[in-house]
């Protein structure tokens, strides 16, 4: 059977499963549409949260980033998991007790202001729309490589599938498909990793293999990798970083951003009790950790595998002849994600770090520059081919990558559509809308959101790559502090909260625009985006944490010179702090 046919079976099979679940789990009420009826088991919700959270970026890009950056990119590992500690202790149980449907719901009620609610809706929509574009383009890439259709065609297929289960089932359909998608993506991610770990270190579990002996050379894997990359002019894989302030702030931004992303928060509205919300955050992290503990192993092993492929006799010997390159390089060259240029005309593929420090050595060996460019994103997708794994593993990776992209896209689309139908339409424009009318409005907003996301995925604005920074920055600087202050302080009033959110939002977006271009229009950046230009060495990606501090400070300052919140609001804060009565709070 051809590889194409195998991929087709895996992808079509998984899609059929998602659609079957959608038909089985149709939503009959707004409560089912927004929060799956509020009866999802905490372990199941943990699994759905893991799929909701782990996007194309986690599945496809993260291992590649770590592979290239080594220790320095551990920020992604800590940052994208540490936020769950904040969620479990600072947000999820109290918001579950509050017992409504959306994040702006809480902000609007707690700060007794439709202004605050609208600011929250705006932050939510900007953060979620930018995030969803990345998912749609990710799905398009996976499709075009594995199913040999154009990426536009792939995107439309993906959109139709999401449309079917998200519009029909709402949160209920999304929850059960996310559970299925989690299983698909985690199996797809771990199987090739186990094979590679066995090949390189004779260890079954990749996270253990990472710190084990490299079978072939008899030295520890990471030490071997350090030696190989050093010989080729790269920085040591395990090397420490100089700019620790930026590393701390970047990690913190990712953590706060994770805790502040609305599509993650609303997952905790679906469990039956406050106690379940706490357990559920733990289970979510367990399921996430299975991938996040595997990723750094995949990263280092794939890097070593790549180097061994190019330098079969070791980095000090000659590189491989271009004509003898393995099939996987040929396959990925077609997609343009691997490029070869024979700069010194010797017919061999020299892969090294062409820096001034390395120039002398390069000249000695007759090298005239790095000849192979490998896109970070292909690492996980090409992993099975690099390790010569059977065809069905490649098919599995295809289905896994799509599961990761689609599950996150569906969660984001639900967050967007519920903000529109529940917060904008029912909350502001037409408060007297009937239950049936609101459900219809929710479905229509979902459909519109999918069409917009598909359009943006096909015509990604030039800034697609930078948008994730914006999504995390906004979630960290505006949504997270507002929610946390709403729960932990009775003194923050509506003026303080609104000023704080706006200050956090504006300072963060302005800092990002300064370096990445105003409104991301190419060529309009005020400063070149290089470390020497960053204020205090803080990169635009790391600014969310600073924005959050600005938000907290402004909110406290403004609240302390203006009036106290009314008594019924102080009572509301008191009530979210205590679990008793959560069951009744749901039926409003």
């Amino acid at each position, binding site marked *: 059977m051809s590889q194409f046919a195998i991929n087709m079976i895996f992808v079509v099979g998984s899609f059929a499963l998602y659609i079957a679940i959608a038909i089985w789990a149709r939503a009959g009420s707004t409560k089912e549409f927004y929060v799956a009826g509020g009866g999802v088991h905490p372990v199941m919700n943990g699994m759905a949260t893991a799929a909701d959270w782990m996007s194309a970026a986690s599945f496809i890009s993260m291992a590649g980033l770590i592979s290239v950056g080594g*220790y320095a990119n*551990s920020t992604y*590992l*800590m940052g994208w*998991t*540490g936020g*769950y*500690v904040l969620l*479990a*202790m*600072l947000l999820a*149980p109290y918001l579950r007790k509050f017992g409504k449907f959306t994040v702006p719901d809480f902000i609007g009620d707690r700060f007794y202001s439709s202004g605050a609610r609208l600011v929250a809706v705006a932050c939510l929509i900007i953060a979620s729309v930018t995030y969803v574009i990345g998912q749609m383009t990710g799905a398009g890439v996976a499709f075009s490589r594995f199913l040999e259709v154009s990426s536009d065609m792939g995107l439309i297929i993906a959109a139709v599938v999401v449309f079917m289960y998200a519009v029909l089932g709402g949160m209920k359909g999304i929850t059960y498909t996310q559970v299925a998608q989690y299983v698909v993506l985690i199996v797809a991610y771990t199987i090739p990793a186990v094979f590679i770990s066995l090949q390189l270190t004779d260890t079954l579990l990749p*996270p253990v293999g*990472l*710190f*084990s002996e490299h079978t072939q050379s008899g*030295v*520890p*894997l*990471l*030490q*071997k990798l*350090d030696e190989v990359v050093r010989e080729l002019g790269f920085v040591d894989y*395990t090397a*420490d970083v100089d700019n*620790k302030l930026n*590393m*701390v702030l970047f*990690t*913190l931004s990712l953590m706060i951003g994770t805790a502040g992303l609305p599509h993650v928060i609303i997952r905790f509205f679906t469990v039956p*009790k*406050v*106690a379940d919300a*706490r*357990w559920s*955050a*733990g289970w979510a*992290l*367990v399921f996430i*950790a299975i991938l*996040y*503990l595997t990723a*750094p192993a995949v990263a280092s092993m794939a890097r070593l595998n790549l180097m061994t492929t190019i330098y079969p006799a070791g980095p000090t010997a000659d590189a491989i002849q271009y004509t003898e390159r393995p099939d996987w390089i040929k396959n990925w060259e077609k997609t343009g994600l691997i490029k070869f240029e024979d700069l010194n005309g010797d017919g061999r593929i020299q892969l090294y770090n062409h820096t001034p420090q390395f120039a002398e050595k390069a000249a000695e060996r007759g090298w005239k520059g790095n000849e192979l460019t490998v896109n970070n994103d292909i690492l996980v997708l090409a992993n099975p081919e690099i390790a010569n794994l059977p065809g069905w593993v490649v098919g599995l990776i295809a289905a896994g990558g799509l599961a990761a992209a689609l599950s996150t896209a569906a969660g984001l689309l639900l967050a967007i559509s519920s903000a529109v139908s529940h917060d904008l339409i029912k909350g502001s424009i037409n408060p007297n809308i009937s239950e049936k009318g609101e459900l219809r409005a929710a479905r229509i907003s979902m459909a519109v959101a999918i069409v917009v996301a598909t359009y943006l995925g096909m015509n990604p604005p030039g800034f697609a790559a930078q948008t994730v920074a914006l999504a995390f920055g906004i979630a960290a600087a505006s949504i997270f502090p507002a929610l946390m202050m709403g729960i932990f302080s009775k003194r923050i009033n509506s003026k303080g909260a609104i000023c704080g959110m706006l200050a956090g939002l504006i300072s963060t977006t302005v800092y990002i625009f300064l370096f990445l271009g105003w409104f991301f229009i190419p060529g309009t950046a005020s400063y070149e985006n290089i470390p020497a230009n960053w204020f205090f060495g803080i990169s635009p990606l790391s600014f969310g944490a600073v924005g959050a501090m600005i938000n907290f400070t402004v909110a406290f300052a403004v609240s302390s010179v203006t009036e106290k919140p009314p008594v019924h609001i102080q009572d509301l804060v*008191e009530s979210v*702090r*205590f*679990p*008793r*009565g*959560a*069951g009744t709070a749901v039926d409003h």
Partner: protein
Amino acid sequence: MADDKHNAQAYWQANLRLIIISLVIWTVVSYGFGILLRPLLAGIEVGGTDLGFWFAQQGSILTYIALIFFYAWRMNKLDKEYGVDEE
């Protein structure tokens, strides 16, 4: 009512104390051992590299999981002790 209020106050203080302890540990393993204190841990070897690298790529994540489950277990118990749990 006064008793209730006192009780509620004590429950909330216990929760805050637990959160602070957990977040101190959270900070120490990630920002401490994983990033800022890594040079101090450089002497402790783990599989071809040092303990700081292990904390940055595995240790912190494992600690987070332990922290959340500990917090959930402890809080669900406190809910009952203070009589604020959901029946």
